[in-house]
């Protein structure tokens, strides 16, 4: 055996977590073809917090679904953690816009679901779920069913559920879009905190420039027809981020122009 082979981990240090090479997707159904994604090449490193911004229909959800393994791309290559994406996996946690909690399971059982599928012992599952419920600020709601929870609570449970199996990648598709401003900003703070503590790689789709600037370490701006990346910006604003900081506004204006928004005078 060669010593160099032995020390080489499956994912070499410095290798990006996500590599997309000339990724394209076309939705093809009888009446017409939609070029949802043109040809996207992209790499994302471990621990990055990437926000994806862009107008409706520019392929954000399509990109996320391809990374999650829900959609097989028409062409191109996707690798996550050194492996070609072949269907969904618990290595890639997903948080959906509509929460998608299992209505027949309690909040705690929802959080434990991935652990149960991984065959972890009941005691261990309960401990992990308990910690996560505390992390998302719902330590006492574990016994409740989703119908007993508010939208913001459901979204926090959904985040805890996605975190439970410690996926190296967290894919979030407009998770806070349906929430009121207060709940939204408290969940943004929670997410930043989780990212600081656990260092997962996060790909977060949003329509909201402010949200992106509060969260992201890197911002990808997309444009439609065909879906493509038009801007890729590192956000080096210090944390905690203040929306009133001049630099914040500078970047805001820049991004707004990039997605073709008429900024307020």
């Amino acid at each position, binding site marked *: 055996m060669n010593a160099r082979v032995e020390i080489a981990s499956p994912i070499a240090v410095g290798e990006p977590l996500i590599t997309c090479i000339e990724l394209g997707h076309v939705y093809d159904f009888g009446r017409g073809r939609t070029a949802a994604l043109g040809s996207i090449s992209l790499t994302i490193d471990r621990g990055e917090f990437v926000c994806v911004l862009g107008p409706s229909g520019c392929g954000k959800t399509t990109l996320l679904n391809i990374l*999650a*393994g*829900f959609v097989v791309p028409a062409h191109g290559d996707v690798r996550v953690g050194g492996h070609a994406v072949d*269907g*969904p*996996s*618990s290595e*890639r*946690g*997903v948080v*959906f816009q*509509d929460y*998608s*909690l*299992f*209505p*027949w399971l309690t909040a705690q059982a929802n959080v434990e*679901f*991935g652990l149960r*599928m*991984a065959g972890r012992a009941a005691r261990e599952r309960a401990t992990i779920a308990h910690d996560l419920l505390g992390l998302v600020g719902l330590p006492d709601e574990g016994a409740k*069913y*989703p*119908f*007993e929870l508010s939208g913001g609570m459901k979204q926090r449970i959904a985040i805890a*559920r*996605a975190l439970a*199996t410690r996926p190296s990648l967290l894919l979030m598709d407009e998770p806070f879009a349906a929430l009121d401003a207060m709940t939204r900003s408290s969940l943004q703070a929670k997410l930043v905190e989780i990212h600081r503590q656990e260092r997962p790689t996060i790909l977060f789709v949003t329509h909201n420039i402010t949200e992106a600037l509060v969260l992201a370490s890197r911002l990808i701006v997309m444009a439609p027809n065909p879906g493509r990346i038009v801007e890729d910006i590192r956000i080096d604003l210090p944390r905690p981020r203040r929306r009133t900081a001049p630099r914040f506004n500078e970047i805001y204006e820049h991004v707004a122009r990039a997605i073709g928004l008429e900024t307020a005078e």
Partner: protein
Amino acid sequence: MAFGVSRHSVAGMIGTLAFFGAWEALSRSGFVNNVMLPAPSTIVQSAWELILTGELPRHLGASLVRAAIGFLGGSALGVILGVAMARLPLLHGTINPLVQMFRAVPSLAFVPLAIFWFGIGEMSKIVLIAWGVFFPVWVNTYIGVRDVSPLLGRAAASLGARGWRNFAYVVIPGALPFIIAGLRVSLSVALVVLVAAELAGAAFGVGYLIQMSQQVFRVDQMFVGLIALGAMGFAADLLFEHAVRRLLPWYGAEQAGQKGP
């Protein structure tokens, strides 16, 4: 408003009492033949006698056993075939026209045929009940499994539940509200078919009791039979609801419904 509720229940009590009081008075008044319309007190008395002689329990027992076996058999088949057809398009394509064809025929119309084929014994009744129960359970199961949220399926898959585990942990629980709705409908179907089959020919059973009582002009006993059937249906529904609430606490909050096929 507690006051309003109690006022309503008092009103309901008065209404019920007035109804039975008037009935009692009418039967005793001589305006109507009290053999044709026996007084409630007479009916209670005959019921008591039928219970003491063991006749009513025997008929009721026979009916219950038939209904239970038929219901279990029919709903098991309905669930299995509903799930299988929703998951296997080829199977669905192959037998759907047949099932739809049979479903279109009211199940009571099969009573004479079933008696001709299986005799007036237990077999014909159980087969008929199972037949009647099968269709609503099948339709609901099929729709429930077919329309299970693909998003929940994705959520589960991204948590490591693929293949059969996705089926067991997501598809089946997701379809459960529909399956339960189908089972509930089938409960009353089972009762209807049971009585029809017993009326058409039997040696035991509540339907048989009603039929026999008619032939010997015991209208009071016919009423006892009717009450027994009502109690049976009521108890079955209550029991079912209780079981659902105990086993599936989340069910009430889900707006489960029946959709057309």
